[in-house]
């Protein structure tokens, strides 16, 4: 059980990268970005391209940093993929969501457009890589470490927890202490007032997508490192992402983090009683419960 809990924290950390971005977008742009899970997929596959394709061609060494399962290539691939997906997210907003916002199309049309974008990304991945599950480093043995309490955890997973913690800490500092970060929080509070104060909401929106996209990309990559890559992985994250975001309160970044950890742990513990394939269903049930009982989430964001 303790092992399930630890793994739940690992999974939760990955979900957190997505749900924090999702809650930022939800808070500032007020719509449900159904494409967010697929931003994670895109990030994972861009990294795959880099690690198994471009960097291999460039001759960069691939010796893993023992005891981790990856090496130099992945170290370069992560930031490059994050930046790529950040740009893609900004571009997506520019060509799809922004025109719809200008037409005052309503949250449902925007959500529908996001749904379409989600499928387009999935199809692109399927076209380029096919439907099979892939790995960053196929055939690698991934030995687990033994920790006290007889918990087994892989070094990769420790890395995941550490890097997610670091990223969230950096994001926190950014939002709390930088001018742009404060402006983002202000815009999330009240976009109209922010505009009226002179804050350039266009730039804020770009930053939001950039951060959301970049974090999603990292989430996808980490999942790929830990488990595997497959084209539907992002779609499979959609329910836990939304459940985490709603649980924590829309627009509340720290709530999204807690919500994600809760979702990760609950989903993992559920595998003691249900088939693992039912994990999304578990996420779904929790989400429905929250929506019925306390729609503003634990920490009360927008409802």
């Amino acid at each position, binding site marked *: 059980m303790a092992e399930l809990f630890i793994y739940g924290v690992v999974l939760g950390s990955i979900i957190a990268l997505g749900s924090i971005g999702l809650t930022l977008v939800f808070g500032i742009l007020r719509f449900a970005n159904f494409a967010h899970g697929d931003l994670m997929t895109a990030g994972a596959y861009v990294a795959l391209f880099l690690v198994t394709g471009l960097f291999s061609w460039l001759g960069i060494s691939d010796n893993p940093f023992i005891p981790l399962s990856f090496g130099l290539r992945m170290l370069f691939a992560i930031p490059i993929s994050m930046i790529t997906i950040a740009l893609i997210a900004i571009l997506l907003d520019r060509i799809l969501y922004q025109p719809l916002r200008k037409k005052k199309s309503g949250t449902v049309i925007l959500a529908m457009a996001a749904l379409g974008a989600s499928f387009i990304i999935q199809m692109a991945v399927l076209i380029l890589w096919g439907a099979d599950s892939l790995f960053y480093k196929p055939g690698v043995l991934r030995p687990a470490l033994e920790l006290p309490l007889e918990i087994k955890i892989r070094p990769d997973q420790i890395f995941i927890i550490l890097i997610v913690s670091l990223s969230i800490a950096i994001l926190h500092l950014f939002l709390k202490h930088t*001018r742009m970060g*404060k*402006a983002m*929080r*202000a815009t*999330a*509070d*009240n976009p*109209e*007032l*922010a*505009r*009226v*104060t*002179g*804050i*350039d909401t266009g730039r804020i929106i770009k930053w939001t997508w950039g951060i959301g996209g970049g974090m999603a990309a990292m989430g996808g990559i980490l999942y790929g490192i830990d488990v595997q890559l497959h084209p539907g992985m992002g779609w499979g994250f959609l329910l836990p992402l939304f459940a985490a975001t709603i649980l924590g309160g829309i627009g509340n970044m720290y709530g999204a983090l807690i919500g994600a950890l809760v979702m990760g742990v609950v989903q993992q513990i559920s595998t003691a009683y249900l088939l693992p394939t039912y994990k999304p269903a578990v996420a779904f049930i929790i989400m429905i419960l929250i929506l019925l009982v306390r729609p503003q989430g634990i920490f009360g964001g927008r409802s």
Partner: protein
Amino acid sequence: MSLLEVTDITAGYGETDILDSVSIELHEKEIVSIIGPNGAGKSTLLKTIFGLLTPRKGSIKLQNEEITGLSPDRIVRKGMGYVPQVENAFPSLSVHENLEMGAFIRTDDYRDKLEEIYGLFPMLLKRRTEKVGRLSGGMRQMVAMGRTLMLDPKVLLLDEPTASLAPLLIRMIFEKIIEINRKGVAMIIVEQNAKETLKISDRGYVLAMGRKVFEDSGQTLLKNEEIGKLYLGG
């Protein structure tokens, strides 16, 4: 010289017009109040001046420059500030951060200005790290005013600054308004609390049913019994 000239404004929401050919003026360092019954269009007038609404007819000039139809974030850069009646501060940001947001478009070092604002509102200094969402209505009003003042506006539009405040706070807000005015900021105040507002106003306009029905100096309007009966409810 007119600082702000609003001429023949007809404006409204959707298909209905709320304002019908309203003209007002604001001179430098003046306090002008706009009073009248509910639904007369007072708030609508302020919103139109600030660019939140585009008038169907008429013109608005700030220091002889046409600003009709400009968006609020452009107007704010031209030296006009607006304090809405509700939702006028960022609840999840601290007092200090709210003021910082007010100075967002400033490219210079605005610490002096911050000190000045804290000097004006010492109670804000004491609570500068608190989240504005937790503060009382009166404090929030001061945060909102302080925030707009960070840009050194020449004109300040106040929409019902004392709405739903306790009498002690109302007095304090009016004192602050006078102080701000002494520093050279001209103001247009929309108020339900007509008597108190007229007392501190140089001039006043009475709006009813979207039209201007009276205009005169603050004192004259105050003494006018007819207006007192019809419009100065309390």
